[in-house]
């Protein structure tokens, strides 16, 4: 027989399997050397398990520890952050294998494994990862049951897995209940940002940025309109970062400025109660209000995308002075937010604040002299701003061509583009258009974001990285900020038909974005498959990941706003209820046996009266034996009405056991007479 404290062998094998599976699942986040180290670790433990090798000595363990620390310093240069901590935890759990002798060590390790298994979900929340995490949990639970299995226990070595599977299935209803009931509260701590390269619109723009994105087929975000009918393609301008500052080559965002007319960002969309947000009042929206929900893929950046004139009531979404949405935290997981939009809008139509006007007219000195000169000339030739804009757009339309592979540009990028190459992508047109406007004295800025979308058969929109776009906004008196898309003047089909159909027949197909079915969209069957997979992912992220932002959880509906304290109280109350129910169930036998007839109750009260007088009835003592004992102890001489008690006992026996109900009245009388 195995001693109680020893580690059962089948449990150990399952623990090894579980740890290996978790390490594989986390392999993207772990450095390569740690994977190698873990493999050596596992093999070593396996050899120990087979009785071929011995446990490592103390110095070997110290060496392993120091080597891991050194490796982490080299790989990460820090010890905080998600990846270093994951690495630390996984490697520590791996090393624990080499000094695990007792059952209690195994149990400890199992709990660490539960934690590391769930860590996978911090990195990705796709269906595949969720299923794989469940698989890991299955293995860990198998290890746990294996550890508790007695060494001499019957059953095959697969029985822990079977039992673990049965346990997971049994816990499914509880999981569903918790999923539906528990609200998703913001975490106590923020998950430190991941150091992952991300694609997408950046906060800057220099020549070539967008043409690179144009070849990328990755998903940027999905949009579902509440009424199911998205607006036409030429209105789908998803506004992102607004680029105001130009240094001659690179466009960048303006630093956030809190000015007299209000803060730069207003959080939560609900602004009417906040004071001093004057700029908010200068937005005019008209027409029918409609809503949509946007599910953004992680970008590690805080900005959000929306149609013009957005308004969101989500608490962690803010509206900036530039009329775009931002998030409180960088988007590290899929982000859901709902937005309202209006077909007609106008903002800052009355006047442009002087400091802002200065900002949107600024052009760097010493760059692009030819363009500046030509702009001034054209501006004097035209009377109004509209005419000037029209003049420029007309010129674009006549002499320029739109291409994904523009030639490289030198120092005076605008000059070179406008007067020499005349071939370019959206950023070239947007950049030079805004430059021309500013040089001509018209306030203008570059807007980056996405344009257009792919319509999924299920009714929602897919916006890919190749939809990335840059366009311009100019400010005109009485009109406010107006969108002008110079690309539309050059290649109207790009806007009307969408990027993918515009490029698919002419120029290079999508070449980036890793392994992606979008590369094969011209093959109908594969395209169908791609759309089906996307729908699966969409519903997963809408109904599982985004459950809390879609609608309030059941708990919130029942209790209103919830906090950690109310959750704690609720859990406590639920636990007490459950334990109480179990106790009640366990005690139900004795509770039923306690049911009494009125006759028995009166007998008991008689007994308790006698007990108070100093003659308690023994447990299990019958009325006759009791009476005889009381008589022997001379009750009648010591207690008044003692005779009544003795009489009552005799009568009780007659009524209860002699089945002579005619004495019932007499028993009641006698029993009550005794005090």
């Amino acid at each position, binding site marked *: 027989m195995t001693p109680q404290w020893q580690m059962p062998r089948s449990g150990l094998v399952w623990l090894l399997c579980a740890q290996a599976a978790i390490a594989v699942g986390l392999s993207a986040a772990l450095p390569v050397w740690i994977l190698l180290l873990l493999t050596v670790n596992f093999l070593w433990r396996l050899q120990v398990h087979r009785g071929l090798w011995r446990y490592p000595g103390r110095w070997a363990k110290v060496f392993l520890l120091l080597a891991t620390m050194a490796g982490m310093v080299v790989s990460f240069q820090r010890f905080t952050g998600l990846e270093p901590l994951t690495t630390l935890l996984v490697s520590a759990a791996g090393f624990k294998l080499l000094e695990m002798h007792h059952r209690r060590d195994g149990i400890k390790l199992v709990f660490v494994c539960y934690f590391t298994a769930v860590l996978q979900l911090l990195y990705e929340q796709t269906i595949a990862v969720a299923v794989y995490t469940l698989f890991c949990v299955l293995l860990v639970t198998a290890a746990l049951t294996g550890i508790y299995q007695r060494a001499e226990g019957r059953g095959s070595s697969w029985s822990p897995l079977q039992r673990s599977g049965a346990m997971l299935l049994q816990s499914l209803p509880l999981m569903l209940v918790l999923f539906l009931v528990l609200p998703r509260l913001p975490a106590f701590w923020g998950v430190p940002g991941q150091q992952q390269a991300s694609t997408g619109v950046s906060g800057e723009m220099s020549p070539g940025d967008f043409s690179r994105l144009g070849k990328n087929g990755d998903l940027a975000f999905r949009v579902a309109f509440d009424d199911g009918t998205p607006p036409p393609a030429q209105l789908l301008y998803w506004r992102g970062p607004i680029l105001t500052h130009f240094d001659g080559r690179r466009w960048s965002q303006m630093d956030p400025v809190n000015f007299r007319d209000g803060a730069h960002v207003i959080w939560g969309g609900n602004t009417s109660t906040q004071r001093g947000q004057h700029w908010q009042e200068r937005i005019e929206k008209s027409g029918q209000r409609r809503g949509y929900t946007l599910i953004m893929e992680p970008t590690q950046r805080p900005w959000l995308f929306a149609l013009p004139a957005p308004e969101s009531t989500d608490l962690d979404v803010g509206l900036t002075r530039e009329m775009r949405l931002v998030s409180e935290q960088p988007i590290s997981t899929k982000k859901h937010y709902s937005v309202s939009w209006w077909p007609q809008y106008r903002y800052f139509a009355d006047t442009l604040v002087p400091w802002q006007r200065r900002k949107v007219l600024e052009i760097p000195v010493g760059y692009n002299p030819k363009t500046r000169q030509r702009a001034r000339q054209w501006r004097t030739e035209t009377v109004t701003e509209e005419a000037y804009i029209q003049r420029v757009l007309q010129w674009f339309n006549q002499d320029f061509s739109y291409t994904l592979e523009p030639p490289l540009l030198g120092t005076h990028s605008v000059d070179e583009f406008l007067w020499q190459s005349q071939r370019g992508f959206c950023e070239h047109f947007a950049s030079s258009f805004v430059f021309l406007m500013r040089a001509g004295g018209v306030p203008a800025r570059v807007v980056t974001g996405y344009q257009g979308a792919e319509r999924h058969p299920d009714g929602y929109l897919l916006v890919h990285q190749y939809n990335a776009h840059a366009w311009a906004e100019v400010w005109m008196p009485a009109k406010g900020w107006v969108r002008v898309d110079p690309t539309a003047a050059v290649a109207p089909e790009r806007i009307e038909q969408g990027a993918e159909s515009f490029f698919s027949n002419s120029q290079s197909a999508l070449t980036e974005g890793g392994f992606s079915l979008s590369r094969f969209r011209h093959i109908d069957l594969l395209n169908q498959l791609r759309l089906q997979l996307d729908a699966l992912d969409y519903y997963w992220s809408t109904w599982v990941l985004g459950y809390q932002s879609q609608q309030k959880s059941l708990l919130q509906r029942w209790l209103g706003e919830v906090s950690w304290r109310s959750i704690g109280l609720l859990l406590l109350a639920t636990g007490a209820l459950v334990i109480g129910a179990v106790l009640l169930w366990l005690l139900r036998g004795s509770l039923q046996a306690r049911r009494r*007839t009125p006759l*028995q109750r009166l007998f008991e009260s008689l007994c308790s009266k006698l007990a108070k007088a100093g003659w308690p009835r023994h*447990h*299990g003592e*019958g*009325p*006759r*034996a009791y009476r005889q004992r009381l008589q022997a102890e001379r009750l009648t001489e010591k207690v008044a009405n003692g005779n009544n008690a003795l009489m009552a006992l005799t009568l009780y026996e007659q009524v209860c*056991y002699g*089945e002579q109900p005619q004495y019932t009245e007499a028993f009641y009388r006698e029993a009550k007479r005794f005090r």
Partner: protein
Amino acid sequence: MKPVTDKIVDAVGQVLMGKEPQIRLALACLLARGHLLIEDLPGMGKTTLAHTLAAVLGLDFSRVQFTSDLLPADILGVSVYNRDSEQFRFHPGPVFNQLLLADEINRTTPKTQSALLEAMAEQQVTIEGETRELPTPFFVIATQNPTHQSGTFPLPESQLDRFLMRLSLGYPDQAAERKLLSGLNPRSLLKDLQPVIELSELLQLQQQVEQVKASASLLDYLQRLTGQSRSEPGFEFGVSPRGSLAWLHSARAWALLEGRDYVIPEDLQQVAEAVLGHRLRGSNELAGIPGSQLVEKLLDSVDIV
């Protein structure tokens, strides 16, 4: 005028001195149409009790001394070829008596022990394919030595269960023993004993036992007791339905001996040790505890209401 049952007890008590409770229990067992097992050391008066009861009740009596080479036929009887009539003639064995004393039953082999089974349970025996009725009343008193003595075959539970009661006589108290020593030899007293009861009266008493009332409250109490013995982890197995029936029946007989026509909880308690002592066994930590203490524990753990 004393009731007839008290007369019986008094008459037996003159031979077996100072053992009134055991005599009453034995009589109750007889009236409840059960069989009696007396377990005690040699020389405690087991056989005397059986003898005296037979004499006082006026029953046919036979005694079989059980030994390890005793065969079933020695008890049940055997067919012998008669040369004169050229036929087999059945010679009934000692079992065809109203009171059978099976002395030292645990000295014989299980095969012979089980030959008594049918007789005790069905009040009939089947010999050579022919079923023969046994006389009425039929009462087996078996004695056995404590099983830890050498040369014994312990009775299996199934056979123990056939005995309504198990008694042990124990040493007599000093006064009773002095009386025994100073008086005549009990054996000679036995010869002079006259029956105090007619057979028809005895059968009538047995009838009366079945008419003793057991109220719903009493049955509740009985069921709580048996339920407790079945659910309490201290008992390896609880009281069987046959056991609870035997208990109730014994309590009825006891109530009759007390001159009542209804059963009270005290009746159950009085017969409990005799009825349950050989039917209960403690589990685990209570394994070594004798049945009598288990019964006490059981009675203490259940209240009458």
